């Protein structure tokens, strides 16, 4: 093959990025998490003080963790449920499949933008679109975004609304299931409902597993919608204080870089734990044979 030296030149950009922007910073943030650092004074070693504060003395963080978990637990199942339901309807050999698929995917495509977040804020505000629509049927609704009891659900709704990308993955998975499996099953007298539980769902578990892991990780990392809808505060009364938003406030609002680094590592550990649990339990419910 070619001159061996060339390989190293081709890899140079990646090499710089890997050590300078990924591995180096990842290790640095681990060290930083044992310090107090406000960007002005040099970092001061504080041992495990940041972690002790995380576990014992930060009630705002506890609230933030609760909100984030609530968001993950509510948004992921509903999102995947809608995605699977719509994918199954689309998979029944419907004419205009690609048009429907594009329409249902649009919210996912646009959902990450600030444009959609500001729209969402209007829709769920005190005199917003939903309020007007509910007035037509005689319901006087509160301002969802400024009511601490409801604000988080507007974010859940925003996430569920973007079921398009898991739907596309489900659809790709459904198309892999051979038609004759269903034909054989209906000859044996299996009804639709049984076919779903006995054939579709088991054969779809690898795709379901993939969607579950990806969407859960994404939900843990959600930031922009909560930032825009709460105006950067995580309010009202911390009811939309996503973990990432709290981390942002600690780092770039109060410049507690050491504490924020500890928070970041905790998030990584949480995500790693969730992913590891998914993979460890996969053996019991994910069927890889076709």
């Amino acid at each position: 093959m070619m001159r061996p030296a060339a390989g190293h030149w081709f890899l140079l950009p990646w090499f710089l990025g890997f050590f300078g922007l990924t591995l180096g910073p990842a290790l640095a943030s681990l060290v930083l998490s044992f310090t107090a650092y406000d960007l002005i004074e040099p970092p001061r070693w504080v041992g495990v003080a940041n972690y002790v504060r995380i576990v014992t003395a930060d009630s705002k963080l506890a609230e933030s963790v609760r909100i984030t978990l609530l968001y993950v637990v509510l948004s992921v199942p509903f999102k995947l449920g809608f995605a699977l339901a719509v994918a199954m309807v689309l998979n029944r050999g419907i004419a205009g499949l690609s048009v429907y698929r594009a329409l249902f995917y649009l919210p996912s495509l646009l959902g990450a933008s600030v444009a959609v977040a500001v729209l969402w804020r209007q829709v769920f505000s005190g005199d917003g679109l939903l309020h007007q629509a509910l007035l037509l049927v005689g319901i006087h609704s509160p301002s969802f975004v400024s009511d601490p009891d409801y604000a988080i659900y507007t974010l859940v709704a925003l996430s569920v609304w973007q079921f398009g990308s898991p739907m596309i993955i489900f659809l790709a998975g459904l198309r892999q299931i051979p038609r004759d499996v269903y034909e054989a099953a209906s000859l044996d007298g299996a009804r639709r409902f049984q076919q779903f539980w006995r054939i579709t769902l088991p054969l779809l578990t690898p795709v379901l597993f993939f969607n579950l892991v990806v969407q859960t990780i994404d939900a843990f990392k959600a930031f922009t919608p909560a930032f825009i809808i709460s105006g950067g505060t995580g309010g009202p009364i911390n009811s939309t204080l996503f973990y990432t938003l709290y981390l942002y406030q600690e780092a770039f609002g109060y410049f507690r870089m050491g504490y924020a680094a500890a928070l970041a590592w905790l998030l990584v550990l949480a995500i790693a734990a969730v992913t590891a649990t998914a993979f460890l339990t996969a053996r019991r419910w994910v069927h890889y044979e076709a």
Partner: protein
Amino acid sequence: MFAHAALCTASLVMLYPLLWMLASSFRDNADIFTSLSLIPAKFDLAAYARGWRGLHTGFGRFFINSTVISLLAVIGNLLSCSLAAFAVTRLKFRGRDLCFAMMLGTMMIPYQVTLIPQYILFLHLDWVGTILPLVVPKFLAVDAFFIFLMVQFFRGIPKELDEAAVMDGCSAWRIYWNIMLPLSLPVLGTVGVFTFIFAWDDFFGPLIYLTDVEQFTVQLGLRGFLDAGGTSDWAAMFAMAVLTLVPVLLLFVFFQRSLIQGIATTGLK
């Protein structure tokens, strides 16, 4: 028939807020809070004019900034990721497999872990307040996922092609530039489109790195409308929101196939 009716209704309900925003961008502020209709009474472009003029800085400035950052990100990712992918699929050198394993490993590292030291690094380089922190990393192949996508594609290109080129005395650079890249347009397109959309939609990066309003991207510019306080100009904000969605929509229309395929096979957003 029933399925079509259900799907049409469902997609209309889903798209209703977006269509309503489009309609509202032609209304004046008073009507926005009273009209549920998807068809504005008149096509009044006043809100577009107000929004484009902006609060302090014109929205045109934000569009230029976003375009520059996104295009640089695309160029950076296409070059750096294809170089790395070419090295691990087509060249032989010591530590190649280890390098590839490390590339795959970085896909698992969420950006929050590297965020704070990166910020401190860029602060010391005096890059905070410039677009460099948003652009330079793209030239250093930090989006390992795209390397992986290209590796998958490069593996499908017959090795005989570059072996024949070596026989003819081609250098590795020539093979990369004149043989591999022209054959890889589909994957380059997919990576380019996703990079553009991600960079265009990025809110967090510009939020922490851009400090001067003159440098703001469209996403930060939109947020500016909200910060104006209680007297938000909703119509102007919706008008500009619609405009910020246009480039993404156009890319979707033209690259629908590769986008959908990219999602179906890799789980990208």
